[in-house]
């Protein structure tokens, strides 16, 4: 018995302090929430009354995460709660940029490719090539940050819309400034994908070219330099490349998804959306390689739109001079493919050098686009970091003083037993710190003000466990039991109380965590965590500690507990 108690006690000490030392040594610290370090919080929800597919919402969240990751924001928090998406960007100051970044549409667009896709030579990026726009498609203002109050972006392509395609010449705009020029080496890229009617409906065995990707990298001949995005306000990723914000009404440069090195294509205005497809796209093996097969919706909204676009590309009209059609999702081209037939009858297949994963991703994109989600901005909150820093300091200092006061009171009331409370609080504190640090590293958990406050309040509940135990211990001792016996009986009684009361807190924490968003959710998490720690520490620290001490003669002195202890050994008084 005694050995087991010692092992339990030492075990918990090792775990708690090990966790603390480990996290301190590796420099893992709890990430600070938005209200503590300042930043921007954006909340979006699907538009009410509009049907959308779950896949589309999932994809929208992924897309937001992808964009934020590429921006390199430290400790972003992207929470999906039911249909609500909350994005917390600590440390980000430019509010407009943040809003643009997280506003993904979930819309899938069909856009003709106006000029051959080109890879970006990353090695040439650093040089200050101020080459002016050259060739036919020098485009400046198209990679616009959508600023709703200015209509500048659409003015450049007045009259351009999804229904009225604009020829490539019309949208060629000279760059306004040479800032942010990005040289793109003009390497011809063989497009490896082919769009063709499904064989079972048309009977036309479409010959897929299935060409290997022959993207040549690193040919640094800057004779053909294309300028993308002269505006300095465009958010830029870690490579210095602009993060593309889709503008389906104008021609613009957009990156192809997953291309390495980055590859940009100049695409025309959207001429159709993913809604032409039914949501039955599946990845399947086509002609010995992976591809995607999907059906078209009937009538004007589906077949007709698709076929008009397909014929433009097949005959290489001015609206689709390359004969290639791209499928775009939120500023990145998921697929760029040659159109093999002028007319399709109900079914489309996209084949090429896909891997299975790529084909499945494309199928997901097409399915989500067939019933896209429309996200609406619900709230934009800008938390000033100065306020945050003050609050943080105040919360820490006052929390520390508060705990100190509690310990003074405990020492006053329970005399030396107060030391056990103090030691116990360091164990709880170490556990909490360690777990929060680890979670904030692995799961992106952020410590918010309401979380800190939740912890401070939980001090009261944690101390209550000691109070309940010590009061019982004293009752038992007063009843004349030996110390050793009182400790055991006292703990049994107290443990029952602690478990019932803590379980209610845990139920509350779980329900609130599952069903709410924002500050309340953060609070619920820390309440649950500190309650669980309370149970753990009560059983694995307080119990063995007091039981072991009760075996010593030290506890029998009056000053230890503040009451007389019967010196009669166990069982001897009756």
């Amino acid at each position: 018995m005694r050995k087991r108690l010692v092992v339990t006690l030492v075990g918990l000490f090792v775990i708690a302090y090990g966790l603390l030392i480990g996290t301190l040594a590796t420099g893992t610290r709890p990430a600070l929430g938005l209200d503590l370090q300042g930043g921007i919080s954006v909340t979006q929800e699907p538009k009410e009354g509009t049907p959308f597919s779950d896949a589309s919402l999932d994809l929208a969240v992924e897309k937001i995460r992808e964009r934020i990751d590429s921006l390199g924001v430290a400790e972003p928090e992207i929470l999906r709660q039911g249909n609500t998406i909350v994005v917390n960007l600590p440390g980000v100051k430019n509010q407009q940029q943040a809003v643009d970044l997280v506003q993904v549409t979930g819309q899938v667009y069909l856009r003709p490719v106006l000029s051959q896709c080109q890879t970006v030579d990353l090695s040439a990026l650093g040089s200050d090539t101020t080459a002016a726009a050259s060739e036919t498609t020098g485009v400046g203002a198209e990679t616009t940050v959508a600023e709703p109050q200015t209509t500048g972006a659409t003015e450049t392509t007045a009259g351009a819309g999804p229904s009225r395609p604009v020829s490539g010449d019309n949208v060629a705009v000279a760059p306004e400034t040479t800032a942010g020029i990005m040289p793109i080496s003009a390497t011809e890229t063989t497009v490896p994908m082919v769009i063709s009617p499904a064989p079972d409906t048309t009977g036309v065995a479409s010959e897929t070219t299935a060409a290997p990707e022959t993207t040549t990298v690193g040919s640094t001949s800057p004779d053909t330099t294309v300028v993308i995005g002269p505006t300095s306000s465009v958010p830029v990723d870690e490579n210095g490349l602009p993060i593309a914000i889709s503008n389906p009404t104008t021609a613009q440069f957009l990156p192809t998804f997953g291309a390495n090195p980055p590859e940009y294509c100049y695409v025309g205005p959207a001429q159709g959306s993913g809604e032409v497809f039914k949501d039955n796209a599946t990845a399947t093996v086509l002609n010995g390689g992976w591809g995607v097969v999907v059906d078209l919706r009937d009538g004007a909204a589906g077949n007709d739109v698709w076929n008009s676009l397909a014929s433009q590309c097949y005959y290489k009209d001015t609206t689709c001079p390359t004969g290639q059609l791209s499928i775009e999702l939120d500023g990145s081209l998921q697929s760029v493919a040659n159109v093999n037939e002028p007319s399709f009858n109900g079914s489309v297949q996209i084949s090429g050098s896909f891997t299975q994963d790529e084909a499945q991703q494309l199928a997901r994109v097409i399915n989500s686009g067939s019933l896209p989600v429309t996200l609406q901005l619900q709230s934009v909150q800008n938390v000033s970091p100065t306020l945050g820093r003050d609050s943080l300091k105040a919360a820490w200092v006052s929390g520390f003083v508060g705990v100190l006061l509690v310990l003074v009171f405990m020492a006053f009331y329970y005399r030396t037993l107060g030391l056990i409370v103090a030691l116990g609080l360091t164990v709880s504190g170490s556990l909490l710190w360690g777990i929060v640090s680890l979670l904030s590293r692995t799961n992106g958990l952020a410590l918010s003000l309401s979380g800190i406050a939740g912890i401070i309040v939980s001090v009261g509940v944690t101390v209550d466990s000691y109070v309940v135990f010590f009061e019982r211990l004293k009752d038992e001792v007063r009843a004349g039991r030996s110390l050793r016996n009182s400790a055991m009986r006292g703990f049994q009684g107290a443990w029952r109380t602690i478990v019932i009361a803590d379980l209610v807190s845990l139920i509350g924490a779980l329900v609130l965590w599952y069903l709410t968003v924002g500050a309340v959710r953060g609070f619920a998490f820390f309440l649950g965590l500190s309650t669980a720690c309370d149970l753990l520490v009560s059983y694995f620290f307080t119990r063995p500690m007091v039981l072991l001490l009760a075996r010593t003669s030290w506890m029998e002195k009056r000053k230890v507990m503040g009451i007389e202890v019967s010196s009669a050994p166990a069982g001897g008084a009756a």
Partner: protein
Amino acid sequence: MSDVLDDTATDSNPVATRRSAAGRLYHGETAIDFHGRRFIGLGASAVLLLVSLVTLVFGGLNLSLEFKGGVVWDVPSETLTESRAREILDANELDGAAARIQVLSSAEAGRTVSVQVGDQPDAVRQIVQKAFADEVGVTAEDVATTSVSSTWGKSITTKALRALVIFLVLVALFITWRLQWQMALAAIASMLHDVLLSVGLYALFGFEVTPATVVAFLTILGFSLYDTIVVFDKVSENQERYHGSRMPYADIINVSMNQVLMRSLNTSLAAVLPVLSLLVLGAGVMGAGTLSDFALALLVGLLTGSYSSIFVAAPIVTLLREREPKFKPLMGRHSTGAELERLVLGGTPSVRRDPSRQRAGDADRPTPKSEGLTHEPRPRKKKRRV
């Protein structure tokens, strides 16, 4: 546990040696007749609840932006006046007169003019942000803005309320399972009492209800339930203990309340100290405004949470249970004074209600617990031997 009979008190006559009031409190020897004074507590609570409800109905709550929806611009400026801010709003086709403008000052952040209007499109928010920035000569980024659509505000409120209802149903089921349904009812009633009082305080003083306040209300809710359950656990324990003896329910409650009194006082003090520190030091001295709301609501809630367990929840359980067939004949005959004190110290009920068993000096002698049994222990079942 070999020594069940090892129950002899060190002091053979605890009533005879009186300690001071504080001493008795410290040693758990109080004998306060909570039951006899139950209407004082219930009455006070009823009056406070009435005041809360009246202010809530007539005054209403001052809900923050997050619940109503709207846009706020926080303009850092030493010179911007309220009227100038309204002019800027008017110039941007917003109703300047209807805007809520507050001037906030803090030692570190300086003077900030906070301008709040109703729900606006994002474009308007940006234009006005720029206008304010130009006016006071800072960049647009320095003007912090917050915008919340009104539908969003409604949806978080509904979500929180739904979560609350589910939580209460689960808690009621849990308490019914572990304790009794009467206790579940009483615990939830006293929790509502605590939350209503804190909400009423907000309505009375017109404090702004922010998401942080809601977190505080939830903490109160949690703490109130927690505290009530600790108290009820003691009651439940005493119910088992006095199961065999004929004892009015009021006595069980009175004994439990006295036994748990010191624990309740200690716990509320331990819970209140950090919050008090948060309020006085954090919000008062160090000026973290977000904290003051929170800490104030908590302070009130923690105090009422401990109070209501003893003065609201327990009387409700008594009310619900003292009329049960088992306790009904004994109603109105609860012990007070020395008799109660003897019970609190672990004695069994005096035999005065059962004259056939009365013996001389019985009332003064603390009886071992095992004597409290009125019936013989059930004989051990005969096991069939194979």
